């Protein structure tokens, strides 16, 4: 496949130390890049701040899941025990929020966990079968001893030459294009 035909996914910049990666990430954050990411063999403390990452939105999915679970549990028990087929049990009211609470609470946890799991997958755009980075030969080192910053061509600030020069000036030892 010739270079002119293939689309470029982005630029991959290799770094040798977490410190250099972190400083580069801070610069990119301050320059206002949007579609870029950092890959490291282990979690680097402070990288979230250096990248300007906000708190994950997964919490909202679990919250909505939990609230749905609680409501669903309460409504289900009310419908079954008080509306659709009322049976007197132990002289208790047909429906009481107290007896309905434990199952509703468990549904809260179940749907809250579903919200967290599927919300995470949704936000991560997972599962996917392939990613352009996986074709890149040196990218495997991200699980060994190298650090990478990838800027996508889809980033509004991306300019082929200027971005490459920028990454080099930030201390990258090797900047290469990644094919789509």
């Amino acid at each position, binding site marked *: 496949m010739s270079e002119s035909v293939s689309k470029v996914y982005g630029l991959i910049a290799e770094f040798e130390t977490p*410190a*250099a990666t972190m400083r580069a990430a801070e610069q990119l954050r301050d320059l206002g890049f949007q579609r870029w990411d950092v890959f490291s063999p282990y979690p680097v403390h*402070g990288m979230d701040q250096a990248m300007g990452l906000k708190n994950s939105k997964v919490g909202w999915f679990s919250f909505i899941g939990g609230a749905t679970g609680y409501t669903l549990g309460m409504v289900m028990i009310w419908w079954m025990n008080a509306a659709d087929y009322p049976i007197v049990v132990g002289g*208790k009211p047909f429906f009481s929020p*107290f007896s309905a609470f434990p199952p509703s609470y468990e549904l809260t946890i179940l749907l809250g966990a579903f919200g967290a799991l599927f919300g995470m997958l949704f936000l991560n755009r997972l599962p996917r079968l392939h990613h352009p980075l996986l074709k890149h030969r040196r990218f495997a080192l991200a699980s060994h001893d190298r650090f990478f910053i990838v800027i996508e061509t889809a980033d509004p600030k991306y300019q082929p030459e200027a971005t490459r020069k920028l990454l080099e000036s930030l201390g990258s030892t090797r900047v290469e294009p990644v094919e789509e």
Partner: protein
Amino acid sequence: MSAHAPSPPLPPPLDLSRWRSLPNRLIGIGAVGVLLGLVLNPLQFGYSWLTVFMFFLSLGLGALFLVMVHHLFDAGWSVPIRRFCEHLANLVFPWLLIFFLPIALLAPKLYGWMQVADPHADHALHAKLPLFTRPGFYLVAVLCFAIWTWLARRLRAASLAQDQDGAARHTLRMRRLSAGGIFLFALTLTLAAILWMKGLMYEWFSTMYGVYYFAGSVWMTLGTVYFITMVLKRTGTLAPVLHEHQFYFIGSLMFAFTVFYAYIHFSQYFIIWNANLPEETFWYVLREKGTWWYVGLVLIFGHFFLPFLAMLRIDLKLSFAWMTPLCAWTWVMHYVDMAFNVHPVLHPNGYPFHWAWLDLACAALMGGLLLRAFLKEFAAHPPYPVKDPRLSEAMGYVVVHPSPISGGDLDEVDELNGAVEPNGGTR
């Protein structure tokens, strides 16, 4: 460029000098109110005093618990806040013991079981012998205060000794003390909650009552601890050793205890509701009459739902403007909880609004005296354990030392170290 975001210029330290007369004013106002209450209605005074005593006992025991848990978990983050918790725990002696004296004197009037002529004829009381006898009552009180005082004093003494030499053996000693102490703490707190508060209706029984009091106590203590930490950060006293994560962790614990309290109280209610035995339900039936019904709802929504939703977000746990009212709210709700436990004995038809001033007066007197004692202790000692080996960890610094996990090597650790060096880029 540094690895951390540039910190904004520090605001000027908080000036608390205009609050200096607060403790004395509280004591003055409180003493007048308490004397008035004592003259007008000694029995009402007894219950009001008991309500407020149990409220402030929560603070002392909650702080003792936090100190012991710090040692038991070998925690690093809570080192800066441990010293004032030690002072709070030491309020148990002599102040809380002094506050217990009116209850000890009025006990025969306050506790119905002391008026039962023949304990053996009353099965509910007979089953609780010999705990529910006068010697039992007073012996347990002495035992509880002795154990709390001993634990609080010993833990603070070791902590202060470490301020001198910084030796790790003090940490180990405090840990050993806490390991045994936590059992004694659980037993004595349960005994105290049962005899002093649950004993108001001796016919009732709930095995969760001790945990219930404990959960509310620690919750309210965490609200107080958050507030004190925030004030000490603003005044600059603890600012050099605090990190953002202290507030996050105290907030998380507060959130956890919000849920824990609700879980315990719900379980207590639910089990009684479900079993539907008259000898158990009467306690809650009484508390569903008159305005007590609404007090119960205030507990459900105010003690649980409101703080639960307010602290659900991570970032809000770090916002002082958001958390300060919430810290004050823990005091209001814990008071409501104590009143819900104590006041229905004398006022079965609803919360005694016309006697609320007496509760407030007791709170002002006890609060003022405790505040003064606390400030005196706090001023007399270093504001945080200055030579605790884990202090740097609390401050967010990485301490490089070969550990059994790294096999005696410093590998990878120095790589991370490069991340915070201002001009180290390549190895």
